[in-house]
């Protein structure tokens, strides 16, 4: 999981495996953003889930959101080497574009 004082998490899996990354947030939000960041690049949005959506899918990605426990998860099915990146969840509690990021998960997918 990722948030607040927790350090950067690291996960290493084999190609073809499934992986789930968790995120819990502290302040009320109506949307959770999931970003991936490749080395030397800025974050890129990969999936966004709103409070009226318990689950959202995009290709091999699946995000869930539980507003009662203030938690979200990102799953990748049949991970591929190109999924290797750092993944962050982020919330925009004020709906102004002021994002609060989790500490991130370094995902390494090995061939």
């Amino acid at each position, binding site marked *: 999981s990722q948030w607040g004082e927790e350090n950067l998490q690291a996960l290493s899996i084999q190609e073809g495996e499934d992986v789930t990354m968790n995120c819990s947030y502290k302040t009320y939000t109506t949307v959770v953003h999931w970003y991936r960041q490749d080395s030397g690049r800025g974050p890129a949005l990969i999936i966004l889930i709103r409070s009226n959506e318990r689950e959202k899918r995009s290709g091999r990605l699946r995000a869930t959101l539980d507003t009662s426990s203030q938690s979200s998860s990102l799953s990748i099915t049949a991970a591929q080497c190109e999924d290797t990146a750092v993944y962050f969840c982020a919330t925009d509690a004020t709906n102004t574009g002021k*994002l609060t990021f989790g500490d991130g998960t370094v995902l390494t997918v090995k061939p």
Partner: protein
Amino acid sequence: GALVYQYPRRTICKSGTSMRMECQAVGFQATSVAWYRQSPQKTFELIALSTVNSAIKYEQNFTQEKFPISHPNLSFSSMTVLNAYLEDRGLYLCGARDPGGADTEVFFGKGTRLTVV
């Protein structure tokens, strides 16, 4: 599509000198632009949030005197790091969005990596 171009991608400056970075939004109206600094440990620090025609709001530990920001229109924002020292090193990112748009996505530039020597 919506894109944010950020430049320079990397810069090296001598301790005590200043450097400026710029972000250009394409394909959407960047009504708000947030500037972040990412540490080598990958944690993000929000520096300030700028909204066109509103005052720029700086976070604790960041000041206008050190990180002056300009956001003159809906497609451009710049930030300067004045009197840069070693502790200012990191990857600086701009994230822009149009709060009036249908989506709440924040579009990021690729970042400006600042090295201070």
